[in-house]
């Protein structure tokens, strides 16, 4: 492949921009059109979501990984290099959006002509505004029946203080006025302020893993130049690499001799894992360190789940599938975990529910793995007071992962639970509901202040276990997506923890024992009992399903006995069918777990522990 010469594009002819919008407002369609107009891809009917390369992206119609494309466009006699950086639209990925934006000098803000300004429009606008980028407002889908561009223009003026005459009305689907957008990009967005004479300073705004070539990092150069053979260093990991290849994306990889300051492209430098090229990291030349670009942070998981193979025999397969999938997704945190009922597995942290669902879907589609997702565990602690136990463990404070290890109240002077400081930013109309939600999660308010005339910041101290399952979704749900959440570790606090047992006809079911705060025990116990009642098959005697703390029963359901269970007809043709069914049942009994005299199918526990994904 012949290498391009990028030196023919001086900094003044470069424009680095991104398209930002709320979900489904037409970001990716506009990107498709821009690629067509600039000849980057040929104009055919089949150009749909060209930049969305993952199967799951194309199926769900969302962008998960940011991609970029370099477009060449001639305007009034000058050849311009326009670097388009596609961004994930979904709230779970706001960090990625912010890093992509830091490589740009302007954005195209797309708003649906019918839906108008939505939560992500606002969130993304603020990100661009705070980064001091030029903003080109574009009103899309004007071809649709209910379009009301005038109304949307007024919204934009009121909320973002941008004059209505700056808005461009387009239809990305039909191509109407899209060329005007390109021209506006050239006119309004400034070229990057940087110098090829400076030492190399490159921002990593994404990375992917290719099995043959290793990690491919998407970079934007803030200074200097980069070429094959140079030695570079990562500011975050401090590791050193030699550059194998640089190039631009059109949107496929196109190697070039060099990349210069102000340009955007990719780099391959012998990195083996995406964790070596983290989003937001700065690369510089060996022996020429520079001030790292600000804003870098490690991904912060918001939603956790336990993940187990359906059967323990699948453990190794799942292990390698997880290893390979996380190769390309450094924002998933992975820790080993185990459960009595489900065996060995993992506790995974995701950026949000969508992130988790997409991950799960990719696991199924790309690695053919079906897994069980459960509510996760948090690491509780106990301060021991019993001399015997202290001797046994060798210390006076232990971490409890497994309910079976839960030491009795008599042997403990204090139980501790992990906590976090959570910060919520929300428009003021949702304050009431959010405060109620936090109170419901045993959170203690630490601060509340208005950051501008519309938005409030709330600070709460939360027990970690109250937010790990679905706090984030609940928050998003009751604020129509407008509230944001961030948190950091805040150590441990004293907690009234108890071990809740589940009993069947008086016999405890080890696998379902949970450690829980006393205040939450009744609700959780009741839910577990109800779910068990639905999953255990009726038997020849009545079954009492109970939740208990020590000897005290706190919830109960009853499963009545069978009084009739015999097939009505059994002649001739029925017999073979009947035998098959009965023998399957007999076989199934072999696999049943017997608790006292109650027969429980293996998958009953799984179904009871499974996390509810029907939101």
């Amino acid at each position, binding site marked *: 492949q012949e290498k391009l010469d990028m030196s023919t594009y001086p900094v003044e002819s470069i424009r680095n921009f991104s398209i930002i919008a709320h979900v489904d407002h037409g970001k990716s369609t506009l990107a498709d059109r821009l690629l067509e107009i600039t000849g980057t891809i040929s104009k055919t009917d089949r150009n749909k979501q060209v930049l969305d390369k993952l199967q799951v992206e194309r199926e769900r119609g969302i962008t998960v990984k940011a991609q970029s494309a370099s477009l060449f466009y001639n305007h009034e006699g000058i050849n311009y290099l326009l670097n388009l950086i596609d961004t994930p639209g979904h709230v779970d990925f706001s960090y990625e959006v912010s890093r992509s934006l830091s490589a740009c000098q302007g954005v195209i803000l797309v708003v649906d002509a019918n839906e108008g300004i939505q939560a992500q429009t606002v969130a993304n606008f603020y990100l661009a505004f705070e980064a001091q980028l030029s903003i080109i407002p574009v009103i899309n889908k004007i071809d649709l029946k209910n379009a009301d561009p005038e109304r949307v223009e007024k919204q934009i003026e009121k909320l973002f203080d941008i004059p209505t005459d700056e808005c461009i009305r387009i239809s990305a689907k039909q191509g109407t006025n899209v060329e005007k957008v390109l021209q506006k990009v050239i006119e309004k967005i400034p070229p990057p302020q940087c110098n090829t004479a400076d030492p190399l300073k490159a921002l990593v705004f994404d990375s992917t893993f290719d099995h043959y070539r290793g990690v491919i990092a998407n970079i934007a150069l803030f200074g200097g130049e980069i070429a094959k053979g140079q030695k570079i260093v990562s500011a975050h990991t401090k590791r050193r690499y030699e550059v194998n290849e640089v190039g631009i994306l059109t949107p496929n990889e196109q190697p070039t001799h060099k990349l210069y300051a102000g340009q955007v492209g990719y780099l391959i430098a012998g990195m083996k894992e995406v964790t070596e090229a983290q989003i937001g990291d700065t690369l510089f030349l060996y022996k020429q360190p520079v001030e790292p670009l600000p804003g870098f942070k490690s991904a912060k998981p918001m939603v956790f789940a336990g993940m187990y193979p359906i059967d323990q025999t699948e453990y190794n397969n799942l292990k390698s599938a997880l290893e390979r999938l996380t190769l390309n997704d450094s924002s998933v945190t992975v820790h080993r975990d185990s459960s009595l009922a489900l065996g060995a597995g993992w506790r995974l942290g995701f950026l949000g529910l969508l992130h988790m669902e997409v991950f799960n879907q990719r696991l199924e589609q790309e690695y053919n793995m079906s897994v069980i997702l459960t509510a996760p565990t948090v690491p509780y602690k106990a301060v021991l007071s019993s001399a015997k136990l202290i001797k046994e463990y060798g210390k006076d404070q232990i971490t409890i992962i497994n309910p079976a290890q839960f030491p009795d109240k008599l042997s403990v002077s204090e139980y501790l639970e992990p906590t976090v400081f959570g910060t919520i930013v929300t428009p003021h109309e949702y304050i009431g509901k959010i405060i109620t939600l936090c109170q419901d999660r045993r959170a203690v308010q630490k601060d509340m202040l208005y950051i501008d005339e519309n938005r409030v910041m709330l600070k709460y101290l939360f027990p970690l276990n109250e937010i790990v399952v679905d706090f984030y979704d609940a928050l998003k749900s009751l604020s129509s997506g407008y509230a944001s959440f961030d948190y950091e570790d805040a150590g441990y606090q004293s907690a009234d923890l108890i071990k809740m047992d589940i009993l069947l006809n008086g016999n405890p079911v080890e696998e379902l024992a949970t450690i829980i705060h006393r205040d939450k025990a009744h609700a959780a116990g009741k839910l577990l009992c109800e779910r068990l009642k639905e999953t255990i098959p*009726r*038997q*020849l005697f009545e079954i009492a399903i109970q939740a208990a703390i020590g000897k005290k029963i706190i919830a109960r359901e009853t499963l*009545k006995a*069978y*009084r*009739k*269970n*015999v*097939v*009505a*007809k*059994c*002649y*001739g*043709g029925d*017999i*073979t069918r*009947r*035998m098959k069914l*009965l*023998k399957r*049942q*007999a076989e*199934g*009994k*072999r696999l049943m777990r017997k608790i006292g005299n109650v027969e429980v199918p293996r998958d009953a526990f799984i179904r009871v522990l499974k996390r509810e994904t029907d939101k």
Partner: protein
Amino acid sequence: APCPQWPYCRKRCSYCSFNTYVVPAVNEAALRACLVREAQTLLHLSQVHSVTSVFFGGGTPSLASPCTVAAVLEAVAGATHLPAGAEVTLEANPSSTSTSRLAGFRAAGVNRVSIGVQSLDDTELRMLGREHTAAEARKAVEVARGLFPGRTSIDLLFGLPRQSQDAWAKRLEAALRLCDDHISLYQLTLEQGTALAGQVRGGALPAPSQDLLADMYQTARTVLVAASFRHYEVSNFARKGALSTHNLSYWQADQYIGVGPGAHGRFMLRGEGGCSREARVQTLEPVAWMQEVQKHGHGTRSRVVLSLLEQLEELLTLGLRTDEGITHERWGHFSPQLSLQAVFGEQGEARVLQQEGWLVLDSGGLRCTWAGLAVLDSLLPDLLRQLQRA
């Protein structure tokens, strides 16, 4: 015991999932010839000396003409010994049971009739998609009793959607006033793929609760026993000794030969020198079946040799459905080496079930108690496991 199948009906009832076909015209002559041919072939293959009963099922056998019935019976008599007193049953639909028709069947050799009444309430009959009214059903039973006194049976369903305990009690009373000496009482089973099941699943009709069904069954048993019926099988009641010989042969795991499309059989092919009991099924679709019979003399779609274990499993599953259960002799006929006592007498599932009051194992054999019979399908898996281990 040959079981010829007449695979045609005039219409499909809303709950039916049998191998039956509704066609505009039936080539009776061709079907008759094939039934005759297959009966001869299979009887020869089995080398059976004598036949204890014949059962005409289907479909709606009463739609066939008496001469078809006569032809089949002749074929049987020609291929083996058909004693004069052998039970010959014909299933009949109230809408094809005029006096002349039934008399014709009697003349052809039928000596027992089973009438598909199903319900004595017109609304229920409509829900079931039946072709007749309650009045017609009554008439049919009366006619049948006139021609086959003491040898008429009626079929009834309970547990219909919307049927209350009271309504069921009334049906029972009405049935008792009408019936002869044999009643088959079936809990309605909603089979996947039937119209009625679809209606229940879609919510148009309610599904009856498990407890209500249990109550209805108990009521039925009690009422019928009080009226001198012997509850001799899960769903079958008889008084004055009017048990169905043919059906007993299923539950005692005797030999039976299925003839006709979709028919099932269990017999040994002594004619080929074999001595293993086989499970056989004839081709389901009538046209295909007829072609095979014309070509090869019979249209057997599948034949599977049953191992000793499989035979005993069937004997266990079916025998426990009867009030007498499985006698030691009967068990010994199949398994001379391993007795009932050896399998179920020692420590194990059967012992536990006996202690809980569901089963009895004594000199009479192995059988369910009154309570056990109602929950037999909860007992069987355990017993099957015990049998497999032995």
